[in-house]
């Protein structure tokens, strides 16, 4: 792949697996949920990427693994050249200051018994910013950065006194207050009202561009990614099935799953009412017991018997800088 060699790699996932043990009756081992099952990618400093996929395909598990909240079962996460697994307690703490986390449910992500000022000070206190004045100044700066102005009027508010959009801004401010070099946002707008989604996404994107942050943005909504990310990774059943630059992927989807996904997304068009979408039947695969071969083959309209149901497809490059894990491109 002829990547832009000037851009430095910030974070890399190498053959990453995160499996959860399934237990029966509390103690018997009953196999694994393969939430992340062999994922490879590299994020460059300052780029915004989107991970797209259906519910339960392992997006959040991937995010948590990258954040060091889950230990990978196999493979490794490399951040700025250092291996995450090799970090000691101190190193891990430093890493956590370098990577911000924005969760899906803004209300749940904020401790209900702390006011905004306290919520934003917490990371600073934890990372040893002793001086009150400094903390106050940084908290205020973070609030202003997420356009919660005047900052003073928000400092003593409690989460339940804020609207969903404002809550999510506070969450974003909290992710920014330690001045990280990367932000992982796990479906940052899916719990918000449609009318504020765009606003929050633009805010995130603007901050990312201004600060030169790396943004990993997880979503299940392909219609928003074009304007808020530069590259897309499409996930299915714990794997990345297709990856490319945004416009390339949206305009020339290669993997049958991506094609189905794109076909299912309506634009607000009155003609929609007259046509039905081609929707692949069936359900997303069980991660505890994934189908052999290509994970999509049971639902795939183009599945080739004897191949797709037997062998896992490797990444092919049907178009330049556009990877797709499908035997069609063989």
């Amino acid at each position, binding site marked *: 792949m002829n990547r832009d060699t000037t851009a430095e790699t910030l974070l890399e996932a190498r053959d990453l697996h995160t499996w959860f043990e399934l237990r029966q009756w509390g103690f018997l081992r009953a196999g694994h949920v393969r939430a992340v099952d062999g994922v490879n990618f590299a994020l460059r400093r300052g780029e915004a990427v989107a991970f797209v996929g259906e519910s339960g395909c392992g997006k959040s598990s991937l995010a948590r693994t990258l954040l060091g909240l889950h230990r990978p079962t196999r493979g490794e996460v490399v951040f700025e050249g250092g291996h995450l697994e090799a970090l000691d307690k101190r190193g891990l703490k430093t890493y956590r200051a370098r990577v911000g986390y924005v969760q899906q449910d803004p209300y749940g992500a904020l401790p209900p018994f702390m006011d905004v000022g306290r919520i934003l000070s917490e990371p600073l206190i934890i990372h040893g910013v002793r001086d009150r004045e400094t903390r106050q100044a940084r908290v205020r700066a973070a609030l202003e950065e997420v356009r919660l102005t005047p900052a003073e009027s928000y400092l003593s508010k409690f989460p339940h006194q804020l609207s969903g959009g404002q809550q999510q801004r506070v969450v974003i401010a909290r992710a920014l207050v330690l001045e990280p070099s990367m932000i992982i946002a796990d479906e940052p707008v899916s719990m918000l*009202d*449609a*009318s504020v989604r*765009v*606003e929050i996404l633009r805010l995130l994107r603007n901050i990312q561009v201004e600060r030169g942050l790396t943004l990993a943005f997880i979503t299940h909504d392909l*219609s928003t990614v*074009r304007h808020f990310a530069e590259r897309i990774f499409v996930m299915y059943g714990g794997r990345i099935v297709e990856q490319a630059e945004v416009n390339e992927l949206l305009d020339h989807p290669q993997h049958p799953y991506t094609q189905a996904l794109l076909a299912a997304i309506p634009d607000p068009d009155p003609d929609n009412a007259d046509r039905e979408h081609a929707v692949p039947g069936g359900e997303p695969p069980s991660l505890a017991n994934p189908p052999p071969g290509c994970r999509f083959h049971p639902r795939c309209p183009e599945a080739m018997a004897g191949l797709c149901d037997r062998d896992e497809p490797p990444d092919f490059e049907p178009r330049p800088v556009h990877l797709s894990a499908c035997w069609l491109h063989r």
Partner: protein
Amino acid sequence: MTQPALLRVENLRLAYRTGRGVVRAVDGVDFDLRRGEALVLLGESGCGKSSLAKALLRLLPRNVQAHEGRVWLDDTDILALPEERFRRDVQWLRISMVMQAAMNALNPVVRVGEQVAEPLMVHRGWSRAKAMERAAEVFALVGVSTDFLGRYPFELSGGMRQRVVLAMSLVTEPDLVILDEPTSALDVLTQAGIMNVLKRIKRELNTSFILITHDVSTSSEIADRVALMYAGQIVELADARHFFTEPAHPYSQMLMASVPRLHQPDPPQHIPGQPPDLLDPPAGCRYAPRCPKRFGRCDEMPDSITVGERHHVRCWLHGAGP
């Protein structure tokens, strides 16, 4: 083609009593709906969509302060009916509803087939066997294998549960089905599948729908008519084609511009500001504080102004001069 309306709503109001004051969740709503038509009720969270549906079906919480207006179903005012007659003759049999998050409210210990058959046994007095037979038919209609009749809710995926809930609302063959946010919690593919089912049912059974959603793109999948709600009022009521291509109200225009589209070169816009507090809404046009086209007259509450055939807008821009 003029056709008598199946449902005509006149000046419907619903207000809740709360610790901080009276919340006027539905504040003077008028619309009509013809047989076989699908009306999409669009609006931001908290603008009163669910309250409107509950007001229609008289499913009221205890803290209701006012519930008034007229709702004509064919020629009877169903709000004036005695409670008991309404429950017996109208609910389920003429109008059924899928509540918001109903798929998570299925009874966890009763097989889904029986839950679907239950309205028939209760409201129609059918025998169990006959009701189960009908339940199987409806399962097929909504695209759930009849093998699933004997399963429990937790054995089904979200999409399947939503279909079961849909089946429940269709089993009595009502004239009107109200769906409150039926797909918001579902994946794109699942959502598309359910929208396909709705389209098919509408075509085959000529059922009328009121679909409540805040997702403009999804609403375009089924809408014949669109009613856009803002702070307890319908600010624009129009044919879907008009609404999606040339919306008349400034709020509708901004809303359409804020919808992310897959194949659109420009990024979507956002609507600045926040919806008003329903405890204390502005005296004039409720959208005025956020409206870029605001002018002097907006301090007055706009009437519902007719701008075309079955097209009404609450905005002075379309009004005759003062």
